[in-house]
Structures are given as structure tokens and as C-alpha cells.
């Protein structure tokens, strides 16, 4: 009764930015915001 779904690991945006040296302000200006993430789902 168990179903196993394969997942693929993709490069994260932060890794991409690190490679391109484009990380300036990433964390500061666009922080992962838990409360916002929670609130997002309530909009449906």
C-alpha cells in the first residue's frame, strides 16, 4: 500500500546566486518569511 515517488535534487537559487556572485542582499531583502508562507495558503 506504500507508494514511493522519486525526487530529483535541483540546484537551489542560492547556489546559483553564489556561483554568479549575485547574492547581495538576497537574505536581507527577501527573507524566508514563515508567517508569510503560512498566510499565503490562506488566500485560496
Amino acid at each position, binding site marked *: *500500500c506504500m507508494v514511493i515517488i522519486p525526487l530529483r535534487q535541483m540546484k537551489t*537559487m542560492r547556489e546559483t546566486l553564489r556561483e554568479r556572485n549575485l547574492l547581495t542582499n538576497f537574505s536581507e531583502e527577501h527573507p524566508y518569511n514563515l508567517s508569510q508562507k503560512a498566510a499565503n495558503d490562506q488566500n*485560496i
Partner: protein
Amino acid sequence: IYHHPLRSYKDFSYIGNINIGTPPQEFQVLFDTGSSSLWVPSIYCQSSSCYKHNSFVPCNSSTFKATNKIFDTNYTATSIKGYLVYDTVRIGNLVSVAQPFGLSLKEFGFDDVPFDGILGLGYPRRTVTGANPIFDNLWKQGVISEPVFAFYLSSQKENGSVVMFGGVNRAYYKGELNWVPVSQVGSWHINIDSISMNGTVVACKRGCQALLDTGTAFLRGPRGSVSKIQKLIHARPIDREHVVSCQAIGTLPPAVFTINGIDYPVPAQAYIQSLSGYCFSNFLVRPQRVNESETWILGEVFLRLYFSVFDRGNNRIGLAPAV
């Protein structure tokens, strides 16, 4: 420089395939324990990101059902607008009939993401009207035998990682699962006793909470605690990042997350990322609201080390060292 859109994405990386509609249309989605909804782009979406991703064609599906309910969601600098619709969703051979999901008509900021949509595995939110998460529907429809799902996140870039539904395969972890009750039914938060390095508590001194989030790549905590850890590992700030000497990785202590009395060490090889000749700290700041209790987000850095079982039936999370 194509800069702005990349900055707006949240951290993510593990992606799997699902099918929607009859006959099935395939999508690559992020399996995310930090959110609860499923959404994919629609063929009627005219945003640039929708042309770059697989889009759902409602008229090609005999089981599609439209509604007039608006789907409108905002992430920090990304947004999606569209309609709530119903159709058959397949995850492997699991089938959720009349599954509500969001069909985007407008997207902002998703141009370069390597997935089409997001499949949330969080708890149903109280204010969501009619949009039952897919896992709840699979359970309600009797498709899965146990209301659990589990993640094995391999450090292999391309393959080996899996999400399993309806049970737990022991082949993916060592020893026994240690169960931790969720601290607030409604999200995958658990209580942490402390975070220590070299035997000294460096964060979460009076206990704190953590969200186990497969939609986040790193370890995120409050500014003060993360700063203290960066100092302890001699990480120096460069362009808002923190880097350490790559030669020093072997000498850095593990960060030990004590949960329910059990230590979960995260070695330096896991919390430091080597890239392009630099060694970056994977501890990142998560700004907190005023009066918000200390909360950490344990993303893939943690979940690659520890096989994780999300047990909706008993509102608990099981952790064991991954194979």
C-alpha cells in the same frame, strides 16, 4: 545582469513528477512540507514564466471542473493569481479524484525556477475554503493505508531521493525512528530543547520551535543566534554571505540539535557548502516578528542527514539517521 527574478525565490531543490487530468498531463512540482496547497500554471496564463513551464490545458481533460473561486497567493517577491479548480491528480499510482488545486493565470517571479508548481504537504489551513490538501484527500478517499508520508533526501544530485506515501520503508534509515509530537497541530513544527556546539548551548537556550521544511534548503534561525554561530565557526561576512576557510572544515565542531532529549548532530561538512573555491555557511538568518518566539527552519541540510516521517494520524514527526 538577470538579477531581480532570482533573488525573489525561496530556497528549494527537491522536485518530483505528478499528473493532473484525464488523460494525464505531467508536471514537475516541489514537494513542500512548509505549505499546504497545490498549484500549477494554466495554458491561459500569459506571464513569461508560464511559457517556460508545463501548463495545464483544461479543455484536454475530461475530468476537469472549474469554479469561480479566486486563487491569489503572494510569496515575498513572487505572486500567483488564478482560479481554484478540480481535477484528478496522480502521484505515482496514487489517485486523488476531484482534487482542488490552484490554476495560475498570472505569475510573477517564477521565470527561472526548475519546477512548474508546488505541492504542499502541510496541514489544511483553517481558512481555506474547499481547498483540501492532496494528502488529506488521499487519506479521506482511502487511497493510502496509513496517514503518513516520509522523505529520504539523498545528497546525490540527480537520483536516490524519494518521498513515500502511506508507509515507511526501513531501508532508508538506520536504527529506530525517534518520534516527536508536533508542537502545534496545524503545521509541522516541533519543539527543540537546545542547539549546541562543543558542548555549549549556542542557541535555543530555553527551548524553541522548528519547522521541518522540505521546501527550504538551509538552516535558518533568528539573527542573534545565527550571528553567534557564525562567530563560533569563524565565518566572516562577504557580500551578505558568511564564508569560512575551506581548510578549517575538518576542525569545526558539529552543530547539535537536541530534540526530545535526543541529539541530532549536523557536521561541518553538512552546514558548510563548498562552491567555486569558497566555503559558505549554510546557517542563514530568518528575521522574526516582534514578540515571536524563537523559531528555526530545518531544511534540506538537516533533512539529508535525518530521514523524516510526517505522521498526520498521530500528529508527530519521526526522525532517524538516513542511510
